[in-house]
């Protein structure tokens, strides 16, 4: 079958290399999560970033750029 095209091609080493890169990257991310992100205070600070409050007013004058 033509679907088997490239079945013996040396080009197929590249998908395997891709898999290896993924595996190494994934292990790297896990190492980071388990060993790099051990500081609870820092993690707490990072996860609270969306919860910062802001001052909201209705518009009373033409808006300017940040001063």
């Amino acid at each position, binding site marked *: *079958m033509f*679907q088997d095209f490239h079945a013996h091609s040396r*080009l197929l080493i590249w998908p395997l*290399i891709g898999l290896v890169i993924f595996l190494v990257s994934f292990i790297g991310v896990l190492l980071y999560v388990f*060993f790099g992100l*051990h500081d609870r205070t820092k993690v707490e600070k990072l996860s609270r970033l969306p919860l910062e409050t802001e001052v909201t007013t209705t518009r009373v004058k033409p*808006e300017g750029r940040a001063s």
Partner: protein
Amino acid sequence: MEVTRELKRQVVYDDDAVRAFTYATIVWGAVALLLGVLIASQLSFWQLNLNISWLSFGRLRPLHTNAAIFAFVGNMMFAGIYYSTQRLLKTRMASDKLSWFHFWGWQLIIVSAAVTLPLGLTQGKEYAELIWPIDIAIAVVWVVFGINFFWTLAKRNEQNLYVALWFYIATIVTITVLHVVNSLHLPTSFLHSYPIYAGVQDALVQWWYGHNAVAFFLTTPILGIMYYFLPKAAERPIYSYRLSVVHFWSLVFLYIWAGPHHLLYTALPDWAQTLGMIFSLMLWAPSWGGMLNGLLTLRGAWDKLRTDPVIKFLAVAVTFYGMSTFEGPLLSIKSVSALGHYTDWIIGHAHGGALGWNAFMTFGMLYWLVPRLWKTQLWSTKLAETHFWLSTVGILLYIVAMWVNGVSQGLFLRALDVDGFLKYPDFIESLRASRFMYGMRLVGGLLFFGSYLLLIINLWATIRSGSKATSSLDVVARSTSTPGGNWRLLRGSPVIYSLAIILIAVLLGISGVVTSAVALALLVILVIAAILSFGLESKKTAGWHQLIEGNSLVFTILVLVAILVGGIVEIIPTLVITHEVPVTTTAAVGDSLAVQVTSSPFKQKPFSPLELEGRDIYVREGCYVCHSQMIRPFRHETLRYGDYSRVEESIYNHPFQWGSKRTGPDLQRVGGKYATLWHYLHMMDPRSTSPGSNMPSYHWLKDGRIDLTHTAHKMDMLSKLGVPYTAEDLAAAQENGLSQGRLIRDDLVQQSVELAPDSEMAAIIAYLQRLGLGPQPIRPDPPAVSQALDQSNANIPTSVKEGR
């Protein structure tokens, strides 16, 4: 050494652009949903095509998908990104002018799509139908958006990049790559072009794009929005920041590989199909990690689920995300795909994601955002509650109908009798059996659209009751520079360890037995050393990662590398297929070198001028949205449609037309199956030849004329892409086209039917009659030729046969 300067300042956010995108979301949402209801009605009641070309299903379906993806979700995504990015970075968007260029440019693109697609101006590739000038406009506007975003990142007042921003970075980078690679076309005129890829290459590039449009346009930016708006609405931080890190990197790396699962059992090389399936299955884990992270953010706030419509919408959206990302990998399993592909199951799956995940996230975000943008309260919580329940019931009716239809169609079309022949040989029987559920789908769609009108009323009243708000924040602006920061990142121990492990793993893959054993031992030692090193020097490691999170450039490069790896290793081997697929002529026989690479007993011929024009009409009318041209290697398919499709059969097809859904039968080998008169009558009134069909009439093809004076130019452009048209072919294009048209006319005249030889009807009949007739076996094969072939093959070294 770190140099830090501190400046106190007030940041005023630019919410005007957010408001503009919010308005656009609401308007285009109505258009997309209305179009969905209309085309669902057309499937139930063919009369609703109204015999008008620009209202026919084949042209409106691409408009519906483009409106839903790029207009509705696109504008919602931009509103969410512009709102959250400024707040997460504690700075205003870098340039108001770029923001407005982005907004108006995007709306212009949408309007252009709304004009061109009904006119039949299309590139014929799903979710990438827009013609090349609009493609260029998309690229320009997207780049402007990217510049504005990364410029904002550069001037931020918050050192750390929150996880939502990671998803936005991945979106911008990946969509740029996908759009550019999939849109490479050779124009033949201002409104028409051919993709540079053909056949299997085009199919792989298209579904690499198509699947990742879902991944990086409909998923990653919405996940970023989830990671921002869900904590805001629940008033509590995300459940696990650690889990979000794993979620992000796994998703970004894995998603890009999954495209080939749209091409299982097709003529795509088997290894690519398997790769697509495996990576799709692996996606289960990060997707569910993200879903659980979202849902568990509501821990301690579940009481709000009873009273707050925002939380209701967001929680159900995240649940649908989980369900869709369970169903997607399930459908990617080859044996499940064998049943579900080409059926309504896929439509149900797509709408579970589009309506359940994307639209519900949009509704949740809008109900939360609009009162804040206009500094007021939501006009009616009860109306929002009603919207929630009606739309939930609407989705359920829709997807259940499609699931039932999908499984039924799959079983129906594969059913064999005791003798091993088709139990239901007439395709139309499966369509008739699907009618009831098409009606149920329409009811679900109407409920969803109707309830959306409640959202419009509610938000309109909310906006009227408030006034535009201006938000500001006092910040201590930190301008931090770390001399040699990028260099520190590159020579950090994680990079060194990773590179060493990758190198040794590659060595392991390509080396002999002894070297492999040594490499394996080294690999184990390195992994242990890395773990010990990171564990013992965790402070140092943390510092290194802190640098990455604070360095948007390095972060972006890492994302780019992650998405490029999967794309390159899947696409490059398939791109070289042109040089190896057997495409031969009888003249090659006897030439030993030629025989080495051209030993196929088939001969691929390019389309004749009239067939080529007919093919362009086939693409223009969107026939591919209901008809496939890809027969899978199953008994029930080969019995029904003919011999299975081969990769070389579509080698000159710019664009490929394999399709993804069969509302009608496969057309790969329809050529010669019916008489010319049958095709004519079928186009004029499909029910005259196929009682029970829901296909629109294409009577306008009879009066439409093709411009054969332009055909030679089209063929010339195709010859530049490798289609073997000769100078003689180009010179005789007009006359050859007319001659073939006259043959069709003469055939019909004998049946008392008048048809102009240069009519669009003649062209499409010529194309349909050609389907399946090429490549043709080189017949007859004289014994001497066969022996010569065998002898030549026997003389070819094994290394040459294997392409080494």
